[in-house]
């Protein structure tokens, strides 16, 4: 059965939207026997303007911070009525919803061990409200609430490590993925769905509007994030690292940062140049931590 269009055309995502690509790929992997809880955010807004809906599967939007407990309620109802075996419950949303405002409730859902696949579409800011800084906004990114300026180099904080928070909850399956590697994403979603219990996948999705890059480059930029080591794509199962996508030829972070307007300020001043070194260090730490470069 063709599952590539369970997320239908006609939605109002920006041209080149990474999240729209990922949302469709997720459903392509799961098939139609799902129920989705989706918080407020870009995906929810561009897919569900009454009477229009892009969802060919059962889907519910409640509030900004409660996709996880709504999904917990759905899962509990399915369990109570003996239908959980046949239906995958998904709680999916952006980084603002899942990593920030919804984190407390998400922790509760993970801790209780509900059989739910949680997905964070990580475009690294509150995009739907116009590009504000979130807990997953990377170091030195310029957003409207962490703007680069005369005395600022953008966001002064590192990305919150949500995958490790998931691991700390004892989740059987935690993974990161990128819309730049669709087959890898497909494999991970299918694997997650086959496992009982709480699963988490964080999918890196470029946002042409918020990251300020040409819409045609969404996939390229997603790949560069991985190839520079800034967004490692890994799997952690039962607390153990079981896969990390290797980088073939290492690329300096500049190659990833330069095409994006949100990092432009780093190329326009000596202070900015110093920051590039720091970002390279972040990438190098990831490369070492996850052994992303083949030895020898």
């Amino acid at each position, binding site marked *: 059965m063709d599952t590539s269009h369970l997320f239908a055309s*006609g939605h109002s995502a920006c041209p080149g939207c990474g999240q729209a690509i990922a949302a469709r790929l997720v459903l392509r992997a799961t098939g139609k026997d799902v129920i989705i809880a989706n918080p407020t955010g870009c995906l929810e807004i561009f897919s569900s303007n009454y009477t*229009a*809906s*892009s*969802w060919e599967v059962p889907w519910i939007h409640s509030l900004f911070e409660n996709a996880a407990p709504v999904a917990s309620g759905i899962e509990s109802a399915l369990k109570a009525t003996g239908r959980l075996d046949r239906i995958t419950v998904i709680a999916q949303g952006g980084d603002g919803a899942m990593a920030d405002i919804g984190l407390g409730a998400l922790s509760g859902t993970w801790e209780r061990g509900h059989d739910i696949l949680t997905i964070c579409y990580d475009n690294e800011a509150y995009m739907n409200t116009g590009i504000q800084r979130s807990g997953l906004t990377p170091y030195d990114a310029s957003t409207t609430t962490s703007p680069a300026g005369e005395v600022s180099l953008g966001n002064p904080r590192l990305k919150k490590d949500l995958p490790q928070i998931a691991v700390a909850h004892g989740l059987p399956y935690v993974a990161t993925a990128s*819309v730049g590697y669709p087959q890898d994403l497909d494999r991970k979603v299918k694997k997650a769905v086959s496992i009982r219990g709480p699963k988490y996948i964080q999918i890196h999705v470029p946002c042409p509007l918020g990251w300020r890059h040409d819409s045609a480059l969404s996939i390229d930029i997603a790949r560069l994030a991985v190839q520079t080591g800034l967004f490692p794509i890994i799997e952690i199962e039962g607390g153990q690292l079981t896969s990390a996508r290797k980088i073939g030829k290492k690329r300096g972070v500049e190659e990833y940062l330069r095409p994006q307007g949100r990092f432009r300020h780093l190329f326009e001043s000596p202070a900015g140049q110093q920051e590039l070194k720091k970002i390279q260090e972040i990438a190098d730490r990831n490369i070492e931590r996850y052994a992303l470069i083949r030895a020898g």
Partner: protein
Amino acid sequence: MKLTVGLVARPGTSRANKTGGWRSDKLPRFLQAKCTACDLCALTCPEGCIFGEDKNTYWADLDYCKGCGICANICPVDDIEMISEVC
């Protein structure tokens, strides 16, 4: 228009919104010459409006294509090019 109790919407009704009207200048032309049917264009189209099965059969539904240019950029054999709407 009917408002259901709780404003429950029917599936796939977004298809009534022909987002092809968003294009301002560029649209993809599928040369159908060197295509290997790798499916990358169809997989990575944000609109899900690229279809194809065998080599050199891929095409975009221009009713929905927003002209983002990802397909032309991603094709590993350069078999898709962005051309101007204005002939």
